[in-house]
């Protein structure tokens, strides 16, 4: 046992015995078993989390980074939110209703909602938020994209907001997860004012941010008195800080996970929570590349069949994630679990390539069709050794079926630029999907020339299905359409979805009711507002259960 582990174990034993004593005392006094969030109230200290760097901004209109957006959403409140399972739930709006065949969306605001300065949140604030979001002089372009189909937003009463769309647009609901901003408070940068469960308290640049629990939050105050985000610039240092007791929650990078997964002392103090966000890691084959390499669906299927994705997960990167099927994600509704990913089958891959006309081989053993060798370059961001390993693994497997793939690692901004301008043969990248399964951006023909449809996938049937699903509000009907799209995508295989990556976070066992899901562990309702500190008795019981079992 290393000195740190021994120290950890000693510390843990002392902590356990102390908790056991406290629990016994609590039981004797008849107060040891009081559970529940409100019993602990907002007692204790703030929960301490790690951030890699300062957020760019806490202004929801100008926060292009994920951290800034998540933190802005903790301070602010939105009309609706998603729960841990990514299902829409009310926040500022008590309820919502689609009318006029899906062209009108009506929100009824919760009249109890208050800004952190005590003023009521009104429909006028919502209208102001929308106007700001669609103003290109103020807000980021992505917000204008989110609200592109909105015609008008009106306040019919202080608690009723009516949104009119130019045409029925089912995925629109989730764009109302944008935090509402106050009309009466202009400074969204230095002193952000929200109406959410957390109040902005302090920001020491480069060091930490502090949010305090809002005791007057209309859906009930958070179970812990605050959140403190410590800025620690390295995953390894974040894990060290966690083990040293300086923070309570730390994300685990693959190296960190390997370091602590078999550490019993660590497991006694921390729980490792695993979750999958709607993120896909893929290789996009450019079917419109000239000379043509990936224009035949048989070839693209062969490429997926030739790569031993499960073998990579088992032998090279255990715990990285799960083998992907299509761009639809298992954590988001609409996913068709009956479709199996293409297995590793190099013989079948070879037969498909032969059938597609790639029978001949050149002196290097590379397949040739009509004088064109099957040689191409894989562009990817050289941001981690993990990417290099995956690219190398794919290269070796394709080589076995007679395909020569050259690796082209580049800076991420170069990858961005070249993928936007379609200067690549194949692109290995990742994409965060939305919480609505609408695949318009990825697969609609209109996005093939300039957009995210990097594969250049143009299929009229799929276009029609995507457009139809966007007009329907019934989830079952949309699911049926998305299942058809998935089957078609599975056959066409315009991209090989290598993995559905898995994320991990280590959480102190002192925190109870820590929930994670497709939105991670912060960006959903209730998120950290649902956490509470475990009572001594609960900790002791949990420790006893762990020691026994």
């Amino acid at each position, binding site marked *: 046992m290393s*000195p*740190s582990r021994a*120290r950890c174990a000693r510390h843990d034993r002392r902590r356990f015995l102390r908790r056991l004593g406290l629990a016994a005392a609590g039981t004797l006094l008849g107060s040891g078993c009081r559970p529940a969030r409100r019993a602990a109230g907002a007692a204790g200290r703030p929960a*301490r989390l790690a951030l890699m*760097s*300062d957020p*760019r*901004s806490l202004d929801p209109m*100008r926060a*292009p*980074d*994920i951290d800034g957006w998540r933190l802005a959403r903790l301070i602010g409140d939105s009309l609706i939110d998603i729960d841990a399972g990514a299902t829409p739930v009310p926040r500022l709006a008590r309820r919502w209703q689609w009318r006029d065949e899906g062209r009108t969306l009506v929100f009824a605001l919760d009249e109890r909602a208050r800004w952190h300065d005590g003023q009521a949140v009104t429909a006028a604030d919502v209208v102001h938020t929308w106007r700001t979001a669609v103003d*290109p002089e103020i807000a*980021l*372009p*992505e917000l*204008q*994209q989110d609200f592109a189909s909105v015609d008008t937003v009106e306040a019919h009463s202080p608690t009723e907001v009516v949104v009119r769309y130019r045409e029925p647009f089912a995925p629109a609901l989730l764009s109302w997860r944008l935090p509402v901003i106050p009309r009466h408070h202009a400074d969204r*940068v230095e002193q952000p004012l929200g109406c959410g469960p957390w109040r902005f308290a302090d920001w*020491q*640049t*480069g*060091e*930490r941010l502090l949010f305090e629990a809002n005791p007057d939050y209309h859906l009930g105050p958070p179970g812990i008195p605050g959140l*403190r985000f*410590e*800025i*620690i*610039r*390295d995953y390894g*240092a974040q894990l*060290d*800080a966690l*083990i*040293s007791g*300086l923070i309570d929650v730390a994300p685990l990078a693959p190296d960190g996970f390997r370091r602590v997964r078999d550490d019993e002392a660590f497991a006694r103090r921390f729980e490792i929570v695993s979750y999958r966000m709607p993120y896909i890691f893929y290789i996009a084959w450019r079917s419109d590349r000239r000379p043509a390499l990936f224009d035949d669906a048989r070839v693209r299927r062969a490429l997926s069949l030739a790569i031993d994705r499960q073998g990579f997960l088992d032998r090279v990167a255990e715990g990285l994630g799960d083998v992907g099927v299509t761009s639809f994600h298992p954590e988001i509704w609409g996913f068709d679990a009956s479709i199996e990913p293409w297995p590793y089958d190099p013989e079948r891959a070879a037969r498909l390539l032969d059938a597609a006309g790639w029978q001949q081989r050149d002196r290097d053993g590379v397949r040739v069709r009509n004088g064109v060798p099957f040689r191409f370059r894989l562009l990817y961001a050289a941001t981690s050794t993990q990417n290099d390993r995956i690219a190398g693994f794919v290269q070796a497997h394709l080589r076995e079926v007679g395909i020569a793939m050259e690796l082209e690692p*580049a*800076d*991420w*901004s*170069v990858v*961005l*630029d070249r*993928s*936007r301008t379609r200067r690549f043969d194949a692109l290995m990248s990742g*994409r*965060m999907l939305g919480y609505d399964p609408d695949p318009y*951006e990825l697969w609609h023909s209109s*996005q093939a020339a*300039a*957009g*995210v449809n990097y594969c250049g996938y143009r299929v009229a049937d799929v276009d029609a299905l995507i457009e139809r699903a966007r007009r329907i509000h019934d989830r079952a009907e949309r699911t049926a359409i998305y299942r058809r799209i998935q089957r078609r995508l599975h056959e066409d295989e315009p991209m090989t979805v290598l993995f559905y990556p898995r994320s991990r976070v280590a959480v102190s066992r002192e925190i109870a009711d820590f929930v994670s899901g497709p939105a991670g562990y912060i960006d959903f309702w209730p998120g950290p507002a649902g956490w509470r500190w475990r009572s001594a008795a609960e900790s002791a019981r949990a420790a006893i259960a762990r020691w026994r079992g």
Partner: protein
Amino acid sequence: MARLTGRLATALLTVVVATCAIYTAVALLPGDPLAPFLRQDTLAGLSTEQRSALERAHGLDRPVLVRWVRWLGRAVQGDIGRSLRTNRPVADEIAARFGATLELNLAATLLAVLIGIPLGWWSAHRPGGLADRLGGALTLALYALPYFWLALILQHLFAVQLGWLPLYGRTPPDAAAGFGARIAHLTLPATSLALHMIAFYARFARGATLEGLQALSARLARALGVPERRILVREGIVPSLVPLATLFGLLLPALASGSVLVETIFSWPGLGSLFVTALLSRDLPVVLALTTLTVVLTVAGSVAADLLVTAADPRRRVSPAGETGP
């Protein structure tokens, strides 16, 4: 006076040319110039009109040299732009972090000067003796080891394993924590930074002192029976201060940019970590401001060292006739 004016004019020209080179190099880096502003997915989905509007809004539609001239013009008036990452004034970003970097580098320099220079003098006192050999081996080892590696070792040993000193940050979370806590936070980063400097100063001071002690005048003094301690001071230590003064010229830029890696390792909220973040996100105004600051301080340090040496060493002074003194 003419010499000083000429020196300052050269320095100014150096700064202008350096900013042009830096601006051009960073602006011409391959990749999407809008990358610092937006999320990856947003960038991919931008329409041509949105892209053009954003490029216009940020002046990216103009040639690089025109942008540099405009930047220089504004910089002369005190406006060094806004951060592309945060949209805050660059001057505010730098001001918010300058104190932390200055504190760290001053502490490290103080440690290095107080330990390194006396160590060098002591080693030079008896060259080849046990102290000199031990000191030489130690300083050579410290000098050869990468200081970021030393920083990681120190961090792991004293913060993770022993838990004696804070792992990261400049201030404790508890606002009521006192001066002692601040010093505790400073100890590991400053020591990590100082160890390398100690080795450098010690070797430099030893060399300069030894040169004086082996000079003809020192040998003459020794032959005349002057006490060794007096010879050490008058012929070794005092003359060694002149080359050491040139070294202090190099200190000035180090105060602003000498601690990039240590700041990153210890999550120290200074200019170094700001520089790394800005560079990784292609935040041109911040990168440019920080590199320009470093260039200005380097040039200022060089001029200051020059003047200091000239003041300290009469042989460097130029006579009115344009000849150097005796």
